[in-house]
Structures are given as C-alpha cells and as structure tokens.
C-alpha cells in the first residue's frame, strides 16, 4: 500500500487496530502521550516509569507533555465545572498532536473519555477537539490489550494476589479482563478473586475526606474481603483506590502489600517498595 495516502494524517478517522497495522506497515512508530495523572506524578513516579516501559516495549514512542497537571476530575466531581474546564483545556491542548493518550488510571482516562464531552457540551466550538481527544484516550491495560494486542507479560512473580476493579475503569471503560489477561502468564502469581472485587473501595476522590466515616466503612468491607482471601498482594489500576486500600490495611496492621498493576507487568516492582512501605532499613 502506498504510503502517500492522506488518511494516514487523519488518525481519528481510522479504527485503532487498523491504525496500528498501518503504522507497522509504514514502519512508523505510534506516538503515545502519557497522561501521568497527578497521583502518580506526586506520589509514585515508579508507576509512570512502569507505564513508559510497557508502552516502549510494545513499540511506541512515549512523550510526556509538560503542560499537563491534572485531568480536572476533583473539580468536576465537586460541581466546580468552571475550575474543571480551566484544567481540562490544558489537557486538550497538551495532547493535541499525539496518536494516543494513555493514562495509568481508569479514573483519569474515564474523565477525559466520557466526561470531557459532557463538561464541554456547552462549547460547540471545542466539540471536535474534545471528541478527538476522547476517541484516542485509553486506560493503560486496555490500551495494551485492546489497541496494541499485547500478549500476557512474561516473567516470574511468586505471590498470592487479588485484583481490585476500580469503578471508573470498570464501568466507564470496560476494564476488567485486560489486566487479568496481562497478568495471566506471570509464573508463580496466583490471582484469587474477592467477592467485592467490583464494589467501590470508598475512595471516591474528595468523598474519602469529606465523608471519612462512610468511606472507612466501605474500605473496611474491602479490606475484610482481602484478608479473608489470603492474598498477600492487592493489585489495581488506580492510585486513588490503591492508596486508600493500602492505607486502611496498614492502619489495621494487616501485612498485605498493594501495588499498581503496571509495576508488576513491567517487571519493575523491585524499583520501589509497595505503596506506603519504606525501603529504609531501620
């Protein structure tokens, strides 16, 4: 197929899978803009680097636009749409020129993919840019499996684990099978499902600090299930939920580690202690 086709320049018009094939045929690398997410940026850079590694290993060129800060969800979910828009406009600009936007978070990816169109519904002039951004935005594991058709990760990670499905990823983006598929061939890793895998952990952004008591009750239900499962590691795809679950496990003195799934998939779990743990020898 001749490479001169103009359609190559109009990526949103092309189905994701087709785009990957076209790029491979053209020997052209996909440019993926990493939406780092504020929690990964501030709290746990190792997740960002794990995501970069997974994307680069899959053949993508990864860029990290410096103008990004946050997706705007805290403001959006608080009803502060003006403030949310201020931040969201930055994201729209920052990622205009990449082929795909990938976030190691179902919550932030869901914000961009499903809620930006709602947020900007009253700005028709921006509709095309918002729709284009939404169309090319993916949660990390979903991007690896659904777009890049990656095979399960190879390697060894001997641990009894369980997986927490974050609400936004699960219900807004259909992230459920993808992380489990990518984990399925890791030697030694056994995944036990807990009954409440799909039940909210009680994080909910500002909810967890505004309604602390209710949030505690919710995360306790999750933590009880985790403890009963015998799992020694909780994996998930969203730092908010993972920090909440880890924090409650630790407060209750339960020796269960919590990690972002990207770290395990990238084989970089040794790069950082588990969430809320220290690598300083006492």
């Amino acid at each position, binding site marked *: 197929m001749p490479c001169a086709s103009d359609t190559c320049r109009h990526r949103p018009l092309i189905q994701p899978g087709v785009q990957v094939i076209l790029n491979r045929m053209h020997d052209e690398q996909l440019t993926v803009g990493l939406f*780092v997410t504020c929690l990964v*940026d501030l709290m746990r850079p190792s997740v960002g680097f794990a995501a970069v590694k997974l994307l680069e290993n899959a053949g993508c060129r990864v860029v*990290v636009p410096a103008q990004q*800060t946050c997706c705007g969800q805290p*403001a959006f979910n608080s009803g502060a749409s003006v403030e949310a828009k201020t931040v969201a406009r930055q994201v729209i600009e920052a990622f205009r020129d990449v082929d795909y936007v990938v976030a190691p978070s179902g919550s932030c990816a869901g914000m961009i993919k499903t809620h930006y169109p709602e947020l900007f519904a009253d700005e028709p002039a921006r509709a095309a840019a918002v729709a284009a951004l939404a169309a090319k935005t993916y949660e990390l594991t979903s991007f690896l499996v659904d777009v890049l058709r990656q095979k399960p990760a190879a390697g060894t990670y001997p641990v009894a684990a369980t997986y927490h499905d974050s*609400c936004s990823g699960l219900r807004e983006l259909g992230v459920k099978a993808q992380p489990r598929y990518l984990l399925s061939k890791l030697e030694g890793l056994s995944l036990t499902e807990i009954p409440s895998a799909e039940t909210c952990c*009680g994080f909910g952004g500002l909810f967890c600090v505004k309604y602390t008591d209710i949030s505690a009750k919710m995360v306790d239900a999750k933590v009880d299930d985790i403890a009963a499962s015998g799992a020694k590691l909780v994996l998930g795809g969203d730092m908010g939920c993972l920090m909440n679950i880890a924090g409650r496990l630790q*407060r209750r003195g339960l020796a269960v580690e919590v990690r972002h799934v990207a770290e395990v998939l990238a084989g970089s779990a040794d790069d950082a202690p588990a969430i809320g743990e220290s690598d300083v020898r006492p």
Partner: protein
Amino acid sequence: MQSKAHTFTANARAALADEPLQAALARFQGGFPVKRRAAIDRLPEFDALRDAGKAIKDATLANLDIYLEQFEAKVIAAGGHVHWCEDADAARQTVIDLCREAGAKTITKAKSMIGEEIAINEALAAAGFTPIETDLGEYIIQLRDEAPSHIIVPAVHLSKEQVAESFRAHHRDLPAERPLSEPQAMLDEARAILRQAFLTADVGITGANMLIAETGSTVLVTNEGNADLTQTLPRMQIVIASIEKVVPTLEDAATVLRLLARSATGQELSVYTTFTTGPKRGDDLDGPAAFHVILLDNGRSRMLGGPFAEMLRCIRCGACLNHCPVYSAVGGHAYGWVYPGPMGSVLTPNLIGLAGTSDLPNASTLCGRCEEVCPMRIPLPRMLRQLRQDAFASGGGPKPMRAGLAAWAFVAGRPWLYRLATGLGVRILGLLGRRHGRFRRLPGASGWTAVRDLPAPAGRTFQALWTERNGARR
C-alpha cells in the same frame, strides 16, 4: 415528613455507630443482589428488556399530558373519579375529604411511597383518623413511629428482637408470656390482628406501581396480598399515584413488570400483580363502591423539561439502593427524608429543594453501580454530578472546600507554578515520610489520616525525574 437531610453527616455517623442497624445491614447485603443476578441469568433478554422499558417510559413522558387525560377518561368511563393534585397539601386534603365523605372509622393502607412523600398518615391522624398500615414491614415501622428505611423493604433496618419488642409493647391484649422469638410467630400475630382491620375497614388506601392509559387500570404488585385485601374489602378505595406512573398499554405494563420484580427482589414476578379498573360493578359481590385516583404532581412536571427528566422513568424497584455501597454502610434513615439511596439522592433535592439536601448528591463515590443495575437505565451518577454543580453554582458546599478548589484550579492551571509547588511539597513530605513510608497523622490531612495511613510521596515528581532522564538521553 420533616427532612433531616441537612444533618446527613451526623445521621450517617450515628448510623455507623448503631450496632443493631449495622447487624441488619450486614444481613441485608448480598441477599437481593445475588437473587437479582440469578433471575437475570435466567432471562437472557434482560438488557434488551431494559432498553424496551426505557423506550416505553420515554415515549410516555414525551406525551405525558395526552396519556394522563386518556387514563382519566377511562377511569371515569369505568365509574371512578380522578383528582389532580398539584402538591402534597392538595393530595392530603383530598384524601381527608374523601375519608370524611365515606364516614370512615377504620382506614387500611397498603404500602405506598407516595403516601410517605405526602405524609398521609400524619395528616389523617391530625384529622382524627387512624390509618392502619397492612404491609408487614410498614405495620412494624408504624408501630415504632419510624419512617421506612428502604423503598421496598421498609423494616430492613430492624432485628426480629426489635420487632418482637414492638409487638409486645403494642399488642397488649395478648398474653405477655407468649413466645415471639421467631418471625413465623410474629407473622401469625400480625396476620390475625390485621385481618380484623381488613374486615372492618371503610376506606382502603393504596399506591400504584403503574397506571394504564389504554384501560384506566391501576397496577399494584405485592407479595403479601395485603394490597388486594386493602382495596377489595372497604367501601371506598383511594389510589394515590404520581403522574409519571402512567404507561400506555397492557403490553407496556407487561414489559415493565418483567423488569420490576427481578430488579427489586430477584423474583421473576411478584406474587400478586393486580390490575384494577374502577369500582364495584352492577352485580359484583365484592369490591369498593367508590374508586378514586389521586394524580400527584408535587414537582414532577417541573422535572420533566430539565436535566432530571430521566429520573421520571424510575419504577421504584430499589435496585440502586440494594447495590449502593453508601446505602449499605449507613442504611436508609441517614438520608433524612422519604427516598434513600441513589434514587433518593436525586429525587429528594428535586422534590424538596437543594437547600438543606446538598449532602445527598455529594455523599456518593459516583461508583456507577446504581446506573449499572437500574432497569430503566437512569444516569444517576450524571444527575448526582449535575446536582453538585447546581449546589456549587449557588454558593453551596463548605467554605474551605470552595477556597481549596479555587486555589487548586489557580495552581493546576499554571503548569510552571504547579511544578514548583508540588516539587517542593513532595520533597518535604518525601523526606518526612521516608523512614516509615507513610504517615499516621499529618496536619491538614486529618480527613484521610483519621482512618487510614497516608503513603509518603517518593520525594521527586515523575515529571522532574522524566525531565532528568530525557536530558540524560539527549
């Protein structure tokens, strides 16, 4: 009913500390969701039926005036009466007038959420009548002078011991030493007492799950059969229903019924589904001589044209309550008014105003489970967000939160400033938290650290490290 939604946070805290309540909620959890799942697994077309149900309601609401007038005409043709009531006051007054007209002494009542919404029992009592709730759960909470804590299982918050205690306190004519430890004994006692009420009632008040425009019929579902005895035995039947209950045809009702019980209790169909059309006819041996339908608006016509119009598709199955982790944590009373759970958090501010109820839409993680299970595909999280927006726009919300959001937006909207501020912040916190990896306490973060440890940041931001790494690459 006076709203206590403005003290939601305190209500919730009390609920979380209420051991019998927590035991009841623990018992309740899982039951209905598991049964619902099993029922849906037996009906592969369930999701397609949800689409059909939504389409029926949307089509009806798009011509609600026409269907209501058609319903009215058919009720009148069948010999019944229709009363249009704009608000709770008008509905209460109409019911009281009708009870007076009937010379009512005993009034039986079958569970009706509209009855709760217009606080009909209090109004009847104030007018000198004694309405008797006949649904077992409603009867129990009436004895206890409580509001329902769930829209389909009103006494779900109680233990059998609490029920036994109430029965002993109120059924004084019965031997004090009678055994009442098991639910069966309590049911037998309630059945015997309520049977006398049914047989002597002059007026029966029921709600309606649907109204059918084609035939002028009211549709009522129960499992106990109490609604049928309530409406068949007295001289007068009063049906109180809100305007969005109308559907066009019997077929449309059938489609909604396929969704209702499965979503609610996981039954395929409730035991009794009753289609009632007008009063007793010429040679009928039973049935009420007079049949009245009250069509209540109470804010619904206002919702119709706005962002909450889709809420009018709600069929009151309770699935959103049954699957809501917040409802499961605090129970129904914490919500402070008639309708709890996600549907209540949308409906309550719409019916009684956002002032004093804005905690309800905020007290949700927006986890989306309610929308996922809603048979009518009502976008509850979107509506909760819309209410948050409305509240924020009208200056609602705690002042520190508003100030915080403004400051956050100022910084997050200026990447250079954001990098500067966050870089400094994570460096300090990283150093402070390095030894333990987390904080048990942190000034300004007590909302978090009151109940959980806070992971310490790694000390450098990803952006800083990335810039460094890429500089090195170059």
